[in-house]
C-alpha cells in the first residue's frame, strides 16, 4: 500500500501542481459523467411537466428545461458523448498524424514530399468547409462519423510536429551509431525517434482532445453533428441557446462551463506531461530508466 502511495506521490511531483490539479479536475468530470446519470433520481429523458423551466435550485442544481427534464442529469449524460468524441478523436489523430510524421521525417524523399503536400492540402482548405461537406455526405452522423471527420482535420499539426522532431533526432550521433550497428528504419523510429518526439506529441495530443470537444460542440450547435434527439452531447445541449439564453441562461451556461473546465484541465495535463518528459529533467525519467533493456 505504501509503495503504491509512494508511486502516486512521485508521479504527482513529476507532473507539478498545475498538472495534478488538471488531472484531479479531469478525473472528477469523467467520474461525474460516468456515475451521475446512474445515481441521479431523474432519468435523462424523464419529463416532469410540473417542474418546467425551473432555475437552479436544491431539487435541480442545474435547473430544468421546457419539458421539466433535469439539466444536471442531461449535462452529465451528454458529457459521456463529448468525452468519448474528444478522446477518440485525439487518439486517432495522434496515432495517424504522429505515425506518418515519424515515417516522413525518417525516410524523407518522395514519402515525405507526398505526405507533406497532403498535409498542406488539409491545412489550406478552410476547416469548416470540410466539416460541413463531410457531415452532409454521411447518411447518418453518429459518434464514429464525428470522430472520423474531426480526426481528418486534427492530424496535420501532429504530423508536422512529429516530422520535425524526427528530422532533428535523425541527425544525432546516437542515431548514426544505431545505423552503423545495423538498426533498420522501424527500429530507429520506434526506439529513438518516437521517444524523443513523445513529450511534444503528448502535449499537442492533449490540446487536440480539447479542440475536438470544442469542434464537436460547434458541429452539434450548427446541427451538422450528432442528432441531439438521439445522441446528446454538450454542444447538442446548447442548440437552443439563441432562443433561451436571455430568459433561461442555465440551459446554456452549465454545458458551456463543463466544456471550458474540461478543455482547461486537459491542456494543463498535456503541458505537465510535456514538461515532465523533457530530457533535461533527469529525475523525471529516472524511473523509466529502471526498465530492463
Amino acid at each position, binding site marked *: 500500500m505504501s509503495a503504491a502511495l509512494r508511486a502516486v506521490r512521485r508521479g504527482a511531483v513529476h507532473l507539478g501542481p498545475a498538472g495534478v490539479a488538471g488531472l484531479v479536475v479531469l478525473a472528477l468530470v469523467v467520474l461525474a459523467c460516468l456515475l451521475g446519470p446512474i445515481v441521479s433520481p431523474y432519468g435523462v429523458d424523464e419529463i416532469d411537466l410540473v417542474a418546467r423551466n425551473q432555475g437552479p435550485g436544491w431539487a435541480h442544481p442545474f435547473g430544468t428545461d421546457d419539458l421539466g427534464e433535469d439539466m444536471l442529469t442531461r449535462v452529465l449524460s451528454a458529457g459521456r458523448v463529448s468525452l468519448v468524441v474528444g478522446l477518440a478523436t485525439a487518439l486517432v489523430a495522434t496515432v495517424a498524424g504522429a505515425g506518418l510524421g515519424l515515417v516522413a521525417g525518417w525516410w524523407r524523399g518522395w514519402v515525405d514530399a507526398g505526405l507533406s503536400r497532403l498535409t498542406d492540402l488539409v491545412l489550406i482548405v478552410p476547416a469548416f468547409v470540410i466539416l460541413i461537406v463531410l457531415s452532409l455526405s454521411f447518411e447518418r452522423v453518429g459518434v464514429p462519423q464525428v470522430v472520423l471527420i474531426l480526426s481528418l482535420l486534427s492530424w496535420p499539426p501532429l504530423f508536422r510536429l512529429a516530422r520535425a522532431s524526427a528530422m532533428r533526432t535523425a541527425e*544525432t*550521433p*546516437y542515431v*548514426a*551509431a*544505431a*545505423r*552503423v*550497428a*545495423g*538498426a533498420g528504419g522501424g*527500429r530507429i523510429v520506434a*526506439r*529513438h525517434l518516437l*521517444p*524523443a518526439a513523445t513529450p511534444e506529441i503528448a502535449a499537442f495530443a492533449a490540446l487536440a482532445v480539447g479542440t475536438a470537444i470544442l469542434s464537436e460542440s460547434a458541429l452539434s450547435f450548427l446541427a451538422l453533428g450528432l442528432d441531439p434527439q438521439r445522441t446528446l452531447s454538450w454542444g447538442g445541449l446548447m442548440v437552443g441557446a439563441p432562443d433561451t439564453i436571455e430568459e433561461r441562461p442555465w440551459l446554456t451556461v452549465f454545458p458551456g462551463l463543463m466544456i471550458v473546465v474540461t478543455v482547461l484541465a486537459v491542456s494543463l495535463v498535456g503541458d505537465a506531461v510535456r514538461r515532465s518528459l523533457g*530530457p533535461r529533467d*533527469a529525475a523525471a*525519467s*529516472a524511473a*523509466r*530508466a*529502471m*526498465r*530492463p*533493456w
Partner: protein
Amino acid sequence: MSPPVLSARGLRVEGPGGAVLVDGVDLDLRRGEVLALVGASGAGKSLTGLALVGLVPPPARAAGGTVSLDGVTLPGEAGWRAVRGARIGVVPQDPAAALDPVRRVGDQLAETLRAHTSLGRAAARERAREMLAEVGVTRDDYPHRLSGGQRQRALIAMALGPAPGVLIADEPTASLDAAVQVGVLDLIDRRRAGLGLAVLLISHDLGAVARLADRVAVMEGGRIVETGEARVVLGAPAHPRTAALVAGVPRVRRGGGARTPTMSTPVLEARGLVREYPSRRGRPAVRALDGVDLTVGEGEVVGLVGASGSGKTTLGRLLLRLDTPTTGSARVAGVDVATATGDELRTVRRTVQPVFQDPYLSLDPRLSVGASIAEPMAIHGIGGANWRQRRAHRRARVAELLRAVGLDPATALTLPAGLSGGQRQRVALARALALDPRVLVLDEPVSSLDAATGARMIALLGELREARGLAYLLISHDLATVAAVADRIVVMHEGRIVEEVAPAALLASPAHPATRALAEAAQALSLAPWA
C-alpha cells in the same frame, strides 16, 4: 603593483536543491594581464565567469559574494546594462550558437556599437567593417558562411567593440583546430598588449593557457585550489589536481614509441573514393573527398589528421556506410560497403563500429546506459535461441563491457544525464565494442573532453587494442594526440591525402605545407618545447 581592475570576493553560486557549484571564489584581474581559469569540465569555471557579470543561468542562482570594477561594487548605480558589454566584454563559448544566423556579422557588430556608443547607423556600420577587418574577418557575411575561426574572431570584435577594460573569454578556442586556435589566441594577445585589456581566459585547454596567460587559477569542485604565475603553476604544479591536469596534456614525442608498420591483411580499404555534393542554387559542386586511397591493416592504428573541412569525417562516414560515395569504393573486410546486403552487410557491421566526437549527443538521453550498449546485440540477435537467453546474455555482456571500459557495471541502470563527458564517451566505446568488431572508426573521440579525461581515454584505447587486437582509424585535428598512439599518420588536405608517414618522420620533417601548418600549430600549443 597596480590595483585590480576587476576583483571578486567570495563568489558563490548554488544549483537547484542547494548544491554549491561555485564555492567562495576570490579573483583579482589587473590591467594588461591575462588570468586563466582552468580545471576539468564541471569545475565551475564558466559559472564563475557568468557570475562576474551577473548572468548566472537559472535554475542555478548567485548566492553571495561581491564583484567590483575599478573599486566600485557591481552592479553600480546605473545597473548591469551599463557594465555588460560597455565595460566588461564577454566572448561566449560556442561561436555558432552565439551569433544570429539570419543577420550578417557586420550588422550584429554595428548593433552592439550603437547600443554602447553614440555612433549613428552609417557610422556604426562603417566602424563595424573596419573592426572586422582588424580582427581578420575579411568579408562581412552570414555566420553559416564563415568558418569557425572567423565566427570566433567576429565575436571577439563584438566583445571588444565598445572598448571594455575587461574581457571574459569562455573557451574561445574549444571548437577550433590547432592552427586556427593559435590565430585566435594571438588576436586576443595583441589586443591585450595594445589596449591594456585585462583578460579572464576560461579554458580546459592547458596548451592555450600556456600560450596566453600570465597567471593561472586552478578550479576544482567550485573552489580555486591553486593560483600563481602561469610558468610556475604549469611547470611545477603544487596541487595534485593541477598536476593531474598538466600530466593529461598529450605531448608531442619525437622518435620512439612508433612501431614499425607491419604488413597485415587490410580490414578497412578505400580506393579512389570521391564524395561530391551537387551544386545548389548557383553555387558550385563541392568535392569533400577527391580520390582517396587508404588502408588500415588488422591491428593497426592509423591516425587521420587534417584541418577542419579537409574531409576526414566524410571519409569516416563512407567507411561506416553513413554516406555513399560518388565514385570509388570503401571496403570493410573485403566487402564493398556501399553495395553490401544481407549477410555481407552483417559482416560489415560486425567488423567496423564508430565512436563519435560529442559525448553529449552520442547516447540516447532516454535510454539507460545498459540499453544503449545492448542495442547492437539486440539488433543482431546475439546470445542464444530464445529471447530469454539472449536477454541474459546481453546483461552479462553489458556488465563485462562496462568493466572493460573502466566503469562500474551498476552504471548500466543509470541514464546518460547522470554521467560526465568522459564517462559517456566510455559508454559509447562500450557500445562500439558490443559486436566484437575488429576495427573502430574514432572520429575526434577526445577533442570534447578536458585534457586529463582525454588522456585517460587514449590510454584506455591503447589497453583495449592490446587486449583485443583492435585496429583504429583515429580521426583528429590534434597532431599531438594522434602522434602519441598511431603507427602511421595520414594527412588530409582539401579532400586529398597529401602525406602518409610514421609519426616520428612526420614531426621531424613534414613535407607538405598542410602538414607543416598542423605541426607548427601543435608545437605552438604544447606545454613543453619539443625534445
